[in-house]
């Protein structure tokens, strides 16, 4: 267990990004971890005076090991960039300080799913796109973890909704989660998908990963993939985690961060 990382602290522009980066670093999925928000991002003005989000991501079932690790970390302070003067605040507490929604739906899953579907419907209608929207929670793999709210869009000619490198779909997902999080008052992992695109893309990326790994083994050279988002890079790291011939790492700065597949030395 010693070489498996159980906890990371990540600072990124948004809580969402920090979580994605952290999951990538740990090689785990959202359902295998517990997320603690250490610092909420504070919006600056035109990039000035803002503060990044810092989250701590803990592998579920590793709390005991973490206690020791956290102590060692606190002593050395090597990973923590900002001084941790403020105590860690749970998500719900922080949200309560923000304006309360007119109607409290934070504990009603069906209401949250319905609300998310309505938000996406409203956005699409105002974008002049007619489509059917359905939302449901996906069961977590581990009952300690939160479910993911999955919003499906079905209809005809919806490729315009995906955009180049799923730019439009990601923008829609980002705006929709901001609105839902604000109304519900807590962070709910929300994914927006168009006609199964995200699942198809995940398949494609996995296959690409295996192909490029073969290439790396065959040629003995590192393979650099095209720039991808943190969640897409994570798919590759996970797909090749148990591969015998290669190791993977991410190189560069977002949005040009790329996965590199390195052949293992014998």
């Amino acid at each position, binding site marked *: 267990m010693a070489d498996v990382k159980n906890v990371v602290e990540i600072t990124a*522009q*948004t809580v969402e990004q920090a979580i994605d980066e952290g999951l990538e670093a740990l090689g785990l999925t959202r359902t295998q971890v517990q997320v603690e928000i250490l610092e909420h*991002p*504070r*919006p*600056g*003005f*035109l*990039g000035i005076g*803002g503060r*990044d989000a810092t989250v701590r991501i803990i592998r579920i079932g590793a709390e005991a090991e973490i206690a020791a690790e956290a102590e060692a970390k606190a002593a050395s302070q090597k990973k923590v960039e900002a001084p941790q003067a403020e105590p860690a605040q749970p998500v719900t507490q922080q949200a309560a300080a*923000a*304006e309360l929604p007119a109607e409290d739906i934070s504990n009603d899953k069906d209401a949250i799913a319905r609300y998310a579907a309505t*938000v996406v419907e*409203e*956005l699409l209608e*105002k*974008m*002049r*796109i007619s489509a059917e929207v359905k939302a449901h929670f996906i069961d977590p793999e581990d009952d300690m973890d939160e479910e993911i709210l999955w919003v499906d869009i079905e209809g005809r000619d919806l490729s*315009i*909704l995906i*955009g180049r490198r799923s*730019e*439009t779909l*990601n*923008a*829609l997902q*980002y*705006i929709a989660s*901001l*609105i839902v999080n*604000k*109304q519900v008052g807590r962070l709910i992992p929300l994914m927006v998908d168009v006609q199964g695109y995200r699942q198809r893309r995940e398949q494609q990326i996995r296959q690409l990963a295996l192909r490029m790994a073969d290439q790396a083994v065959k040629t003995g050279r590192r393979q650099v993939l095209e720039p991808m988002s943190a969640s897409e890079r994570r798919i590759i790291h996970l797909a090749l985690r148990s591969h015998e011939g290669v190791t993977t790492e991410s190189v560069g700065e977002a949005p040009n961060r790329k996965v590199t597949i390195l052949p293992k030395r014998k």
Partner: protein
Amino acid sequence: MKSLIEYIACSLVDQPDKVDVKQQRNGNRIRLELRVDKDDMGRVIGKSGRVANSMRILLRVAAAREGKQVTLYVIEP
């Protein structure tokens, strides 16, 4: 297009009654000006302009549907 920005801005700010969107048309081009309360500026701009840029991406889809070009300006109070 105006309604898209109004909807998003009103849903994200603390003071929806202070949200104001103005639309100007010049042939094919549409200029949208978004104004919100000073304390809500960060919410509609976002870190590194992420919220504003996402709104622009969604606007582009709406504009393409009408064969128009649209630019969004977030105006300082």
